[in-house]
């Protein structure tokens, strides 16, 4: 036993409560401790993950009560993969954030607490096996998100945060309504228990609960008409937080919607619905992205589009589809943060943060620019970077399910994507610098974090087999609903007997 999944929540919480006290001792600890915590959790996650791949899913019962009575955490090949990915990114983002901007002590203390909690919330969403507990974690994540969006004291960040908050409140309302409907029918909140009893629900309750879940989690997962908050929040939050949103937070949103559709309910038509919504999200987001003149906003729309693509891949519903979706998620989780992080330095000193201001920066910030360009090539799915394999998996999965039209549409949209990313790259490298805004050189820690992401993107591009076996394990784990129920509920059954 290397450790227990509960530590993924307990340790950051402990750290978050400790950080204010540390601030009284030595202010630098406020910055350092989160990094140590994240690093520790990353190591723990990797070792647990290895263990899980060998010995099977770990189900942690909290308070000593077996599911369905107690809350449980499920560390499976699927959730473990996501957790590891999130922690890796969180650590990278921490590394980058360390001295990203020299804000006062008070805000920076809050920044690191909130960042830690943003990550913890996301991980909690992924790990928990209890539907109400997931709601709690969603709230932890959201509140951290609201606060971090409004972190900069400028005018527009509060606006973005307020929109996020309105949508987030609606989201929690719908989630609660769904939970109410389920509870009224089944008297249980445990996901595995719900999954095993879902057939006992009256059909109209089940469908209504599903609809509420889709609306509620669709807001977090940025499905099309529900994602109005996302571009604002992504673009107004500090750069590393934009990276965290696109790399970590939205992944948790997608996870929750997937868990509901794949495990909780077995409602006919859900998969086609995911494809439909994913497609609409993808198309609209890319349409909006192409005309943006703010760099982070463009990245935000692109992020939304990618999430649409992920949903489409999940909606294919086959093992290949899930595999592709996970591949897309991993790729996006590596590339989009890289784009956000590098873009943040490219527009560091400007107030407008417009694409125009990237003109000619290739000369002044060569490595940062290169990493941005690398990210751009990877995100549009051009070989030989990681994005290509993700897209390839997605397209072949679609082809194997005879979704030819989907392939065509996805590729058509990809063309749009290429156009706007290459426009930006063009500006960075081939335009003359106009403004007098002095570009800021990234700090060493920021550089290291970006380079690590860059290396991973290239490595996976050249050698995708590095991760594919894990993705396969994960997708099998997600699809095997019976095993999930068995894993979670077996302990409780033995108690009854």
């Amino acid at each position: 036993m290397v450790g227990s999944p509960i530590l993924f929540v307990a340790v950051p919480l402990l750290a978050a409560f400790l950080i204010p006290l540390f601030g009284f001792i030595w202010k630098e600890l406020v910055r350092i401790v989160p990094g140590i915590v994240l690093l520790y959790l990353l190591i723990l996650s990797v070792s647990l993950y290895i263990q899980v791949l060998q010995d099977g899913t770990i189900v942690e019962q909290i308070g000593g009560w077996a599911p369905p009575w107690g809350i449980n955490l499920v560390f499976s090949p699927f959730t473990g993969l996501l957790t590891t990915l999130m922690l890796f990114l969180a650590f990278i983002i921490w590394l980058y954030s360390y001295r990203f901007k020299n804000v006062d002590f008070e805000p920076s203390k809050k920044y690191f607490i909130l960042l830690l909690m943003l990550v913890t919330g996301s991980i909690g969403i992924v790990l928990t096996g209890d539907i109400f507990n997931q709601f709690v974690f969603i709230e932890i994540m959201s509140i951290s998100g609201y606060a971090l969006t409004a972190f900069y004291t400028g005018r527009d960040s509060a606006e973005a945060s307020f929109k996020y908050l309105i949508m987030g409140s609606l989201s929690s309302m719908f989630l609660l309504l769904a939970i109410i409907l389920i509870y009224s029918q089944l008297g249980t909140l445990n996901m595995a228990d719900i999954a095993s009893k879902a057939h006992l629900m009256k059909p109209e309750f089940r469908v209504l609960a599903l609809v509420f879940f889709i609306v509620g989690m669709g807001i977090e997962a940025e499905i099309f008409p529900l994602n109005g908050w996302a571009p604002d929040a992504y673009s107004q939050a500090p750069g590393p937080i934009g990276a965290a949103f696109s790399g970590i937070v939205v992944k948790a949103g997608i996870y929750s919607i997937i868990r509901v559709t794949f495990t909780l309910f077995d409602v006919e038509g859900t998969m086609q619905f995911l494809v439909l919504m994913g497609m609409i999200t993808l198309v609209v987001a890319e349409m909006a992205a192409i005309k943006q003149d703010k760099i982070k906003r463009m990245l935000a729309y692109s992020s939304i589009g990618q999430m649409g693509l992920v949903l489409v891949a999940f909606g294919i519903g086959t093992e290949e589809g899930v595999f592709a979706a996970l591949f897309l998620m991993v790729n996006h989780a590596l590339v989009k943060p890289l784009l956000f992080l590098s873009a943040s330095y490219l527009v560091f000193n400007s107030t407008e943060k417009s694409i125009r201001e990237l003109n000619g920066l290739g000369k002044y910030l060569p490595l940062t620019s290169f990493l941005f360009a690398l990210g751009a090539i990877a995100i549009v799915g051009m070989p030989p970077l990681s994005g290509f394999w993700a897209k390839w998996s997605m397209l072949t999965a679609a082809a194997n399910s005879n979704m030819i039209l989907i392939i065509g549409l996805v590729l058509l949209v990809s063309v749009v994507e290429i156009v706007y990313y290459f426009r930006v790259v063009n500006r960075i490298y081939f335009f003359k610098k106009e403004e007098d805004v002095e570009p800021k050189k990234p700090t060493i820690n920021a550089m290291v974090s970006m380079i690590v992401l860059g290396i991973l993107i290239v490595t996976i591009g050249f050698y995708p087999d590095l991760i594919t076996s894990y993705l396969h394990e994960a997708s099998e784990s997600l699809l095997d609903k019976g095993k999930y129920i068995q894993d979670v509920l077996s302990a409780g059954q033995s108690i009854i007997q």
Partner: protein
Amino acid sequence: MDQISFDISIVEYGFFASAILVILVGLYGALVKKSLIKIVIGLSILESGVNLLLITIGYIQGGTAPVFSPQLLKDMPLTLENIKALGNEMVDPVPQALVLTAIVIGFGVTAVALSLVIRLYRHHHTLVIDEIKNLKW
């Protein structure tokens, strides 16, 4: 003074209906009112409605609070049967526990919302939501 039974059958659906009504009123406020404060109030009302519904779901006809207080136990021995019998007279404790969590969370969100309103007012000198849209398209 032992038995005073209150017949609630006349309001059979009244609780559901009023919870739904509160939800709708809150939503209406959040979706239509122009003032940021009123929107936040709308969201709070909405939240109350959902909480109300949650509580309503857990109600069991004639049930009392799920607290095994001394007055209730009187001199009963603590056996499984006794407890079960008492428990059957009680409302479902789970929604009550959930609602407490939901309320606390809702409170936290409202606090954040109000501080955002203050920030917005500081910058825009208005509370009209239609005038606060610098971020668009």
